[in-house]
């Protein structure tokens, strides 16, 4: 570009000089800053440094992940919008499309759990409705340390209240998710929220600043001094000092404004008055404006003096980098500004013209007409350097994985007592303490509520439904990132198949430590490669997601936790299947094969405090056949229940199916099975071998079920029968048995988590 066209802004009088120290404080390496200077062809102002710092942060720039993420398959005939937009979109038939995405809010939640979690939900909702889709469900995937710590209980209760209050107020049902407690998350809780939204296929709108001369408008809440540099904050490790020092970087949520913004945005999109819309999320106006310009290949010019602010005296730097919540950037058709204002006014919200779309490819910022930043948009949004780092597996993990577990194959006590300990562990026990705080039924679409394998929402006016689940066993991924990721994918797909849905696509939330450490980068690399393989095998492309690095406190990283958010389509609501047994006398059938594997199991953690051993093997093709077999059985109308076998193992799976919802009015049933495998009883009962599903059917359909399994080359055998209401649980293994009255099983399962959280003084400090 000829030099004379580039305006060189002058520093503002109060700006600090841009020194190497200031550059370092902004998270840019000397090499990266060199690159910035090359892009700019001149020195930067303080404001421009702030802009680059945010856009080239890990959070916005994906600098340590982008290269590997290219391995992930992103295309399929049903994918309408892949990665790169606010959310992915797939075609689900009957003229409907589904927008969905998962995102993390780990760092804010570690510092201020209630607001951190609440704003996490707010952000993901906005990503969905800015695509033109109405949010129809949320799921939350949570990780905490062990609950014996008061601090962990405080974080856990704060996060659950935050997730709940925000979604409840906006009126989006929570249909599922997962939670795990393990010392591996002690200092760094993980808070991931997934939202799915529904739209007519033709209502899709994207976040691009198209149409030179069109008007940029800021809508929704005013811009304040909260959350400044949140994106950069999310790209650093936490330390013990983070609590106090980082609170100003945590935003505060206002779900009431969000609800108004949701309705106003959908009305705006329907009105045709706008051509693009984007949430002002991480890095606020800076990222939304520059990314929208970048996508359209255009430029934008905006004046910060026109942005409605909460307090006077805010500098351009602050306005550009504020992460105040519930704000949107809208591109209005030239001449339609009043229509935009009228719609926003109806919802009692503000809309202000702050700039326009230009044809010069620049991200230009003025303050009262004076240029304060002038940056080429494409290098700003796409030019962030990307790295492939050195990845080496940690010796410590290698040792843990090769630990000799043979001693644990012999039960350390009475099998029935051990079973109760596993069943009552907060990781396995009933999660009603959480989901009773979430509105699960608003919008009258929830056909399967939280607590089962996957949540299901029916699509009104059609026979269809949509199922969604989030999964990842962090112990497996810690011990072997590849196997663990394959297991997460396999479990997610099994969960959907058990609900009666065909796995269709995924969104991922990749929670890891500091990628500059070779053993962390190794985890990340292996996880992404494994995910790519599993996505191919299951034909479930990735349509978007989120990378969250630097989940470390005082140098200690969380377990690598690549959470899989998977969605599937239920062809006919009659196929919706639940985990709970339905009828006494039904045959209980085990699909898949038991194994001697105990590595990474809940049993080892509960009985020996161990996270060790080889996590269970995953055979992707066998998983695929299993999913297809379960779906075939469901579609034939042969099954009364289907439940995936995962945390806690087969004994827990059987107990959960017998217990059902455990809600008043829903009878729990007994179950009696015999497992005659030539394997250690501990492994049969508590091993977490992959590729297993427990189904039940009327006795007269048993032959058909076994035949369908054989047709799909899936091992299957009848192992027993469903018992009477309130009946006993009896699981016979070689030479031993787990035998308990139904009431005891139920109490243990119901009390495991709520007993801890409802105990006096449980709230934590």
């Amino acid at each position: 570009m000829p030099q004379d066209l580039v305006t060189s802004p002058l520093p503002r009088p109060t700006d600090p000089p841009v020194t190497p120290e200031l550059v370092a404080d902004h998270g840019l390496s000397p090499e990266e800053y060199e690159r910035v200077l090359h892009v700019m062809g001149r020195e930067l102002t303080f404001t421009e440094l702030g802009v680059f710092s945010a856009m080239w942060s890990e959070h916005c720039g994906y600098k340590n992940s982008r290269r590997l993420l290219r391995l992930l398959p992103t295309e399929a005939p049903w994918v309408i919008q892949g990665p790169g937009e606010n959310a992915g979109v797939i075609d689900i038939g009957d003229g409907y499309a589904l927008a969905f995405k998962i995102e993390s809010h780990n760092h804010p939640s570690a510092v201020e759990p209630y607001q951190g979690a609440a704003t996490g939900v707010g952000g993901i909702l906005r990503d969905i409705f800015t695509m033109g889709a109405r949010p129809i469900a949320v799921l939350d995937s949570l990780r905490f340390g062990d609950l014996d710590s008061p601090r962990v209980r405080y974080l856990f209760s704060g996060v659950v209240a935050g997730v709940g209050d925000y979604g409840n107020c906006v009126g989006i049902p929570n249909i599922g998710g997962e939670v795990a407690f393990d010392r591996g998350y002690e200092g760094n809780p993980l808070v991931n929220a997934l939202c799915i939204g529904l739209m007519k296929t033709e209502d899709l709108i994207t976040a691009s600043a198209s149409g030179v001369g069109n008007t940029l408008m800021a809508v929704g809440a005013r811009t304040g001094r909260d959350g400044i540099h949140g994106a950069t904050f999310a790209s650093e490790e936490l330390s013990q000092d983070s609590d106090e020092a980082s609170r100003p970087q945590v935003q505060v949520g206002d779900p009431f404004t969000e609800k108004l913004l949701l309705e106003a945005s959908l009305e705006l999109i329907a009105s045709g008055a706008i051509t693009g819309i984007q949430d002002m999320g991480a890095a606020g106006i800076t990222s939304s404006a520059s990314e929208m310009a970048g996508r359209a290949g255009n430029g934008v010019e905006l004046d910060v003096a026109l942005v409605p602010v909460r307090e006077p005296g805010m500098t351009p730097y602050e306005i550009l980098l504020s992460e105040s919540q519930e704000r949107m950037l809208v591109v209005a058709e030239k001449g339609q500004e009043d229509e935009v204002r009228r719609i926003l006014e109806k919802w009692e919200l503000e809309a202000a013209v702050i700039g326009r779309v230009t044809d010069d490819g620049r991200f230009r910022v003025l303050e009262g007409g004076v240029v304060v930043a002038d940056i080429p948009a494409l290098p700003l949004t796409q030019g962030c350097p990307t790295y492939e780092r050195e990845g080496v597996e940690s010796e410590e993990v290698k040792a843990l994985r090769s630990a000799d577990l043979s001693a644990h194959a012999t039960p350390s006590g009475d099998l029935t007592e051990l079973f109760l300990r596993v069943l009552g562990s907060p990781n396995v026990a009933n999660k009603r303490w959480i989901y009773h705080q979430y509105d699960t039924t608003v919008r009258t679409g929830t056909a399967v509520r939280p607590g089962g394998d996957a949540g299901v929402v029916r699509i009104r006016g059609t026979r269809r439904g949509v199922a969604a689940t989030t999964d990842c066993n962090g112990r497996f991924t810690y011990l072997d990132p590849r196997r663990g990721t394959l297991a997460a994918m396999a479990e997610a797909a099994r969960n959907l198949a058990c609900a009666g849905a065909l796995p269709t696509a995924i969104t991922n939330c990749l929670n890891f430590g500091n990628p500059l450490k070779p053993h962390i980068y190794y985890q990340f690399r292996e996880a992404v490669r494994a995910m790519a393989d599993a996505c191919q095998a299951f034909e479930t492309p990735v349509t978007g997601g989120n990378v969250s690095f630097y989940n470390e406190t005082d140098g200690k990283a969380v377990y690598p936790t690549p959470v899989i958010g998977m969605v599937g389509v239920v062809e006919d609501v009659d196929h919706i299947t639940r985990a709970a047994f339905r009828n006494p006398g039904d045959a209980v059938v085990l699909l898949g094969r038991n194994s001697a594997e105990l590595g990474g199991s809940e049993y080892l953690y509960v009985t020996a405090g161990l996270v060790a051993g080889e996590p269970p093997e995953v055979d992707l093709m066998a998983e695929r056949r299993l999913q297809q077999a379960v779906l075939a059985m469901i579609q034939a109308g042969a099954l009364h229940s289907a439940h995936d076998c995962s945390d806690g193992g087969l004994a827990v799976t059987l107990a959960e199916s017998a217990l059902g919802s455990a809600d008043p009015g829903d009878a729990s049933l007994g179950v009696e099975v015999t497992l005659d495998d030539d394997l250690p009883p501990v492994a049969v009962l508590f091993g977490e071998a992959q590729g297993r599903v427990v189904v039940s059917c009327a006795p007269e359909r048993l032959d058909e079920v076994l035949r369908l399994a054989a047709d799909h080359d899936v091992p299957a055998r009848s192992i027993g029968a469903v018992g009477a209401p309130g009946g006993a649980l009896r699981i016979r293994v070689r030479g031993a048995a787990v035998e308990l009255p139904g009431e005891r099983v139920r109490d243990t399962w119901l009390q495991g988590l709520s007993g801890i959280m409802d105990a006096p003084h449980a709230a934590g400090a």
Partner: protein
Amino acid sequence: MKMAVITFPGSNCDYDLYKAVQQVGGEATFVWHRQRRLHGYDAVMLPGGFSYGDYLRAGAIARLSPVMESVVAFARSGGPVLGVCNGFQILCEAGLLPGALVRNASLRFESRDVHLRVERQDTLFTSEYDAGAVLRVPIAHGDGNYQADDDTLERLEGEGRVVFRYVDPTGTVTPDANPNGSWGNIAGIVSADGNVLGMMPHPERAMESLLGSADGVGVFTSLVKSLSTAAV
């Protein structure tokens, strides 16, 4: 049957009420809270949600909405008004029903299915139920703990104005069946004239067994039937 479903800023069950009315053959219309006139409707419904974010006291600001003047006049003239959840809270704040809904005893949001016993079969909203019927209906609220002064409670009970009570699945009033600490397990009450019903549970979410229960249908069929009888 024309039913107005009032939408306040922050209402989020307006759509569910609208669909419930349609399901039983009624004609539903969304009425924005700023609209002052309310003419030609046979019944008015105040939906659940978080009007004005419940940032002050649940329902306290919504009752000042322009439309509420007409809602109050409609109720005073004997028109049927149903308030569910936040709608119940607004009816109490507006003085159309006595008492108040305070923070749940658990101090947490409570969302789950509860069982209700139909205490009065002879109301506009319950005629299609058997007296004593036990219904399974979802709740989802943070402030559903019904409280009033002793005189009011005595009068409500004495006049038989408690329409729904939280019970266990067998129909027995127990402390465990009470999800929020409401006095006397009260889940829903009617006005002295019987034309205004406020209830915390969501009958509009219990309209089809696919979603867990169809036990709420009776509230809407009762209303439609009462109105058509009245019209004859």
